[in-house]
């Protein structure tokens, strides 16, 4: 057993961290988030140059064939630096779904552009609260002529307003199918918005949208979709664990320097024990992240393993974030320190693809 990053992974991680430290400090990040676009094409092009956009994809598809451990190695710093760009949306969700298509299909063409950074992809999957479970998906596709007609509504589509191509999950003859759809098509209404944690997303309505036959990526895509979602969950959790680590460090530093009653607040046992609980929470979440990463890279992760990771990260992350704010007091309540932003990132990642409540209960259901 070995749960450490390899030398190569450590180098990758260090180079991403160094890039973000230099080009993506908290002020610069906030300027990007507050810009009209809400994310930076310049940063995105740098990611392409660093090979990050190619990392998750198989070599025969033009990717670098990165393992989940490679992706976790970069997702942790993404979380710590509150990345606003659509890495998870485009690479881990939309792109990964495109990669299920056969060579030569339109979807495969889109994938090439996702890998080079010329296009953004998004996965239109969830339909509102309580639909992390694929069995509850209601969007529907019917055969129409040689092509299809799509109806339904997708909510909280990460990157949905910025995507050049949408991969839509909808029910085709009962089973889940994936379609590559361009957003400008007649019948699609996109309502974009910013999220609480500084990303961009959208609600997307499909009203009998005509789709050509070749837009079908995969019929009966349930298992393949599960694979995509599982890896995206790993990436989201790695981001959150990265954010947890940043909160832990910042809070420890604040508690060691902030004085009240003439002494650093870390010397109050109530504060000290809260710091200890934050460290325990971080230790647990990170151990489960690394262990589950090793499981998924050896093809041994069960649905229960994924549910444990997502549930634990959401629950422990929320507790850690709330403790960080409480320890910071008033300044933790402001927009001015990254503390509140890190907490909101953790909350958002918890709510995406099923929150802790949902996943921990699934752990209990799965005997």
């Amino acid at each position: 057993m070995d749960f450490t990053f390899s030398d190569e992974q450590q180098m990758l991680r260090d180079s991403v961290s160094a890039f973000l430290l230099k080009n993506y400090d908290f002020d610069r990040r906030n300027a990007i988030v507050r810009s009209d676009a809400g994310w930076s094409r310049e940063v995105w092009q740098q990611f392409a140059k660093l090979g990050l956009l190619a990392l998750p994809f198989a070599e025969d598809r033009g990717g670098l064939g990165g393992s989940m451990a490679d992706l976790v190695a970069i997702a942790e710093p993404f979380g710590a630096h509150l990345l606003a760009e659509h890495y998870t949306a485009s690479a881990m969700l939309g792109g990964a779904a495109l990669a299920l298509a056969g060579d030569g299909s339109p979807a495969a063409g889109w994938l090439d552009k996702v890998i080079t950074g010329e296009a953004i992809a998004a996965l239109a999957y969830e339909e509102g609260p309580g639909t992390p479970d694929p069995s509850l998906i209601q969007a529907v596709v019917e055969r129409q002529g040689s092509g299809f007609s799509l109806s339904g509504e997708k909510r909280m589509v990460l990157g949905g307003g910025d995507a050049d191509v949408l991969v839509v999950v909808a029910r085709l003859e009962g089973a889940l199918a994936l379609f590559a759809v361009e957003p400008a098509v007649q019948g699609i209404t996109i309502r974009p918005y910013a999220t609480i944690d500084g990303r961009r997303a959208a609600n997307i309505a499909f009203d009998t949208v005509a789709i050509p036959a070749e837009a079908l990526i995969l019929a009966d895509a349930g298992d393949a979709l599960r694979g995509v979602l599982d890896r995206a969950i790993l990436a989201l959790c790695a981001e959150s664990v990265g954010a947890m680590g940043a909160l832990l460090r910042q809070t420890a530093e604040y508690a060691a320097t902030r004085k009240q009653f003439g002494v650093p607040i870390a010397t109050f046992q109530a504060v000290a024990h809260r710091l200890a609980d934050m460290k325990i929470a971080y230790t647990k979440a990170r151990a489960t992240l690394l262990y589950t990463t090793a499981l998924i890279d050896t093809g041994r992760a069960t649905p229960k393993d994924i549910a444990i990771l997502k549930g634990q990260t959401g629950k422990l992350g929320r507790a850690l974030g709330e403790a960080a704010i409480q320890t910071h007091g008033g300044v933790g309540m402001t927009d001015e320190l990254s503390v509140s932003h890190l907490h909101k990132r953790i909350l958002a990642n918890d709510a995406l693809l099923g929150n802790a409540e949902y996943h921990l209960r699934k752990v209990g259901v799965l005997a």
Partner: protein
Amino acid sequence: MNIDFGSELETFRAEVCAFLDTAPTPAIREAGRKLTSVFAQFDQVMEWHRILYHQGWSAPHWPKEHGGTGWSVEQKYIFAEEYRKRDLPPLLPQGVGMVGPLLIDIGTEEQKAKYLPGILKGEDFWAQGYSEPNSGSDLASLQCRAVADGDDYIINGSKIWTTYAHHANRMFMLVRTDSSGKKQQGITFLLLDRMDYPGMTVRPIIGLDGFPEQCEVFFEDVRVPQSGRVGAENDGWSVAKHLLKHERGGGAQSPTLKRGLERIREAAQTTPSGFGTMLAEDPVFQRDIGELEADIASFEHFEKLAVSGHPVAADPAYPSINKTMNSELTQRVTVMLTQAVGNEALPLQLEALRVGANVEPLGSDLDLIAMPWYLNSRATTIYAGSNEVQRDLIARTVGREG
């Protein structure tokens, strides 16, 4: 023991309901539905304050001779209950809840005459200048200085977490007038009759929910009249402690919590659980909301014991127990709400939250308020004496219960 809700109380309740059903404007109602904080949106809550004043109900807790209602504790509880049932915005507490009662208790006749009417009528809004960047839980370490000069004080320093200071036209504050003794000594309590004294500047602080609710206030050689002093010079700590009784003291917070719970139950009727039913029929939701409801009920029982004169209110830890319970239950309500609405809580909808906004919200009312309310309520365990400080105070009294 008895629980007295005789028929005259039911008549009173009917009167309250009739008024609350008709008096608020649509904008006031909207401000109530969009409440995500202790502090409602300014313009609407002040408008509502003035309407309540015309009804004679803007300060139920004040003595009748100063414009209070003379209601019994049961009547006050009924009023609070019906008020919250309708999601009406609570009046801002700094005036009627804090500086007003203080002046009634220990202000000079001149101060009462000058300030109480404006508070009662909702003409004035008072900012509370207590905390400083380096004096949070350790309030007595405050450093904002006032030096006597003729009939005036000259103030230098700053205050922080001054709610709605950018809306305020008056301010009450603690200043340091003597640094020679213990830190609790040498503090003076001042009333400022204006916010636009030369040398005063207000900087709104954007909160984690995206709203500028709190402010920092800077003082550079600000000259204010000594006649605004409450109590003696250097005796401001005991004045502030007196006021704290009003700030932390109970009244009827449980109706707000109960209403929050009711709104979650309403939302649960139409929110899918993710396990095949609506949340309302989901056993896990039922257990979780049952636990929370029972805990809120215990708080309500505690509040009712206190207002009815049970010895529990005479316990020196009473204000701290009250504050601790209320703040932590508020947070639990908001956590449960965000969990109930799931990822619908994620869009940032600052504009849609504004009263009178022309933006349609993305989901339901509760989807809209869940996250900002949750985020804002993280402050409840920090402000007005952090819950760590409250537990320190409670611990000192343990074992001496009646």
